């Protein structure tokens, strides 16, 4: 009987026979030792893990879920020993000259990290950023949520949208980052300022032109979407987007989700008010206009008002996911908000409860009427 060890390679879990696990662990330990003070160590280790994960997948199939010791030996032979840069360093030392290029370091950035048992990855990302244990961050969220009466829960919710997920090894390295020190911050600020002065005017003009172009394009898309009523008109760029774009896309996704949900709720209220009372917010349609026509007008008005917001919402989600279409996330987010708001209203407002019950009665009557007809 062989013991099986489950491991996490770059976010995916693999099952290894125990000797295979031992071999892999000693390989990675040797690799890290060989890389020593290599400034890209974290990234190279992630790359190696990914390469090993790919090779493991090749040995697995639906009927076979465990990587054996002999397979791991073969995989590690294929990988070959990890070579450090000891000689490179020695050459530089011999030359006596200071290195021309400053050592490259990933800029430390706040990402969400899906790792050991993370739910949204916000806490894990903050822990990596601050270099503390994730448990402390989770405790911080719970305690602050209790003390601020749920305000920080809202902050947390916004962060789920606004903080991008670290999915590549580079981003993961940036999530953990190289520790900052004051000198580094000052150097970087000085460097950035110099570069900014050199390139700013030209860059600004380029930037502006690009913005105008993309705005025109999205306007055209919008018109096309309007005309065709097509969902894919609001397509997102398929190229990978940067951190700032993703952050804004996340915030927009959040804001537009709330707007579309609010519109949907307003529509539902108007629709059911007309059906049950024949009036909306105290306004009664003229007596000579039939109810079905009022309902159709409300539905068309809702579609017209909500479609640009839905398009923007979809674009935001697509930008966030980096795929051309955002899938069903945008619709699900809207539905989730409507359900949550509905549940709150049901619990806390007598009127809302009466209204929802009324809506239920209307639907029930309609179904009864429909089935009696058929």
């Amino acid at each position, binding site marked *: 009987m062989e013991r099986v060890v489950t491991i996490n390679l*770059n*976010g995916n879990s693999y099952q290894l026979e125990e000797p295979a696990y031992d071999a892999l662990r000693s390989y990675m330990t040797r*690799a890290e030792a060989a*890389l020593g003070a*290599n*400034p*890209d160590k974290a*990234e*190279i280790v992630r*790359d*190696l893990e*990914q*390469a090993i994960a*790919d090779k493991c*997948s090749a040995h697995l199939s639906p009927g076979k879920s465990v990587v054996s010791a002999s397979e791991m030996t073969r995989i590690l032979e*294929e*990988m*070959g*020993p*990890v*070579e*450090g*840069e000891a000689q*490179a360093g020695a050459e530089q030392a011999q030359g006596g000259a200071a290195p021309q*290029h400053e*050592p*490259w370091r990933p800029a430390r950035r706040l990402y969400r990290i899906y790792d050991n048992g993370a739910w949204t990855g916000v806490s894990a990302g903050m822990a990596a950023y601050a270099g503390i244990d994730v448990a402390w961050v989770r405790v911080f969220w719970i305690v602050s949520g209790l003390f601020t009466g749920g305000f920080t829960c809202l902050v947390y919710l916004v962060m789920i949208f606004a903080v991008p997920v670290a*999915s*590549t090894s*580079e981003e993961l390295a940036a999530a953990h980052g190289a520790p900052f020190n004051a000198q580094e911050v000052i150097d970087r600020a000085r460097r950035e300022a110099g570069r900014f002065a050199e390139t700013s005017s030209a860059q600004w003009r380029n930037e502006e032109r690009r913005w105008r172009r993309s705005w025109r394009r999205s306007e055209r898309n919008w018109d096309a979407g309007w005309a065709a009523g097509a969902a894919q008109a609001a397509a997102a760029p398929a190229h*990978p987007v940067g951190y700032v774009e993703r952050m804004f896309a996340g915030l927009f996704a959040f804001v537009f989700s709330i707007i579309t949900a609010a519109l949907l709720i307003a529509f539902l209220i108007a629709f059911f008010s007309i059906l049950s009372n024949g009036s909306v917010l105290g306004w009664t349609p003229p007596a000579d206009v039939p109810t079905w026509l009022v309902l159709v007008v409300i539905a068309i008005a809702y579609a017209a008002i909500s479609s640009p917001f839905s398009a923007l919402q979809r674009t935001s989600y697509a930008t966030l996911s*980096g*795929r051309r279409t955002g899938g069903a996330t945008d619709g699900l987010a809207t539905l989730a908000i409507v359900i949550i708001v509905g549940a709150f209203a049901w619990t806390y407002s007598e009127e809302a409860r009466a209204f929802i019950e009324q809506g239920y009665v209307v639907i029930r009557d309609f179904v009864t009427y429909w089935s009696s007809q058929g």
Partner: protein
Amino acid sequence: MPVADEQFAGLRKGLLEFAILTFVSGRTSAYVGDILEALAPTPFATQEGTLYPLLSKLRREEFVDYQWVESGQGPPRKYYQLTDKGSGRLGELGAYWRHLTSTVESLGR
């Protein structure tokens, strides 16, 4: 010719960077799998354990750069391409290589 292989390891190692830069220069972008596959039948056959650290060094020296590209299956891949600085370096390497070989030949005459 395993004996020759063994003896000239140092020579090949010194030229691996040249070989990789040349390969990357020949196409718009290449990922690690492409490079390994292309080099496998040549004397420059190499492995991930060597290639990743070397590519990261070349990237730090700004001879190559990479972009993340979504792959059909699995996580996104790094696709490498030669930078302007890299093609300058490749030119220098080529010139120096020709200088070396012509020197060796002229010594024998």
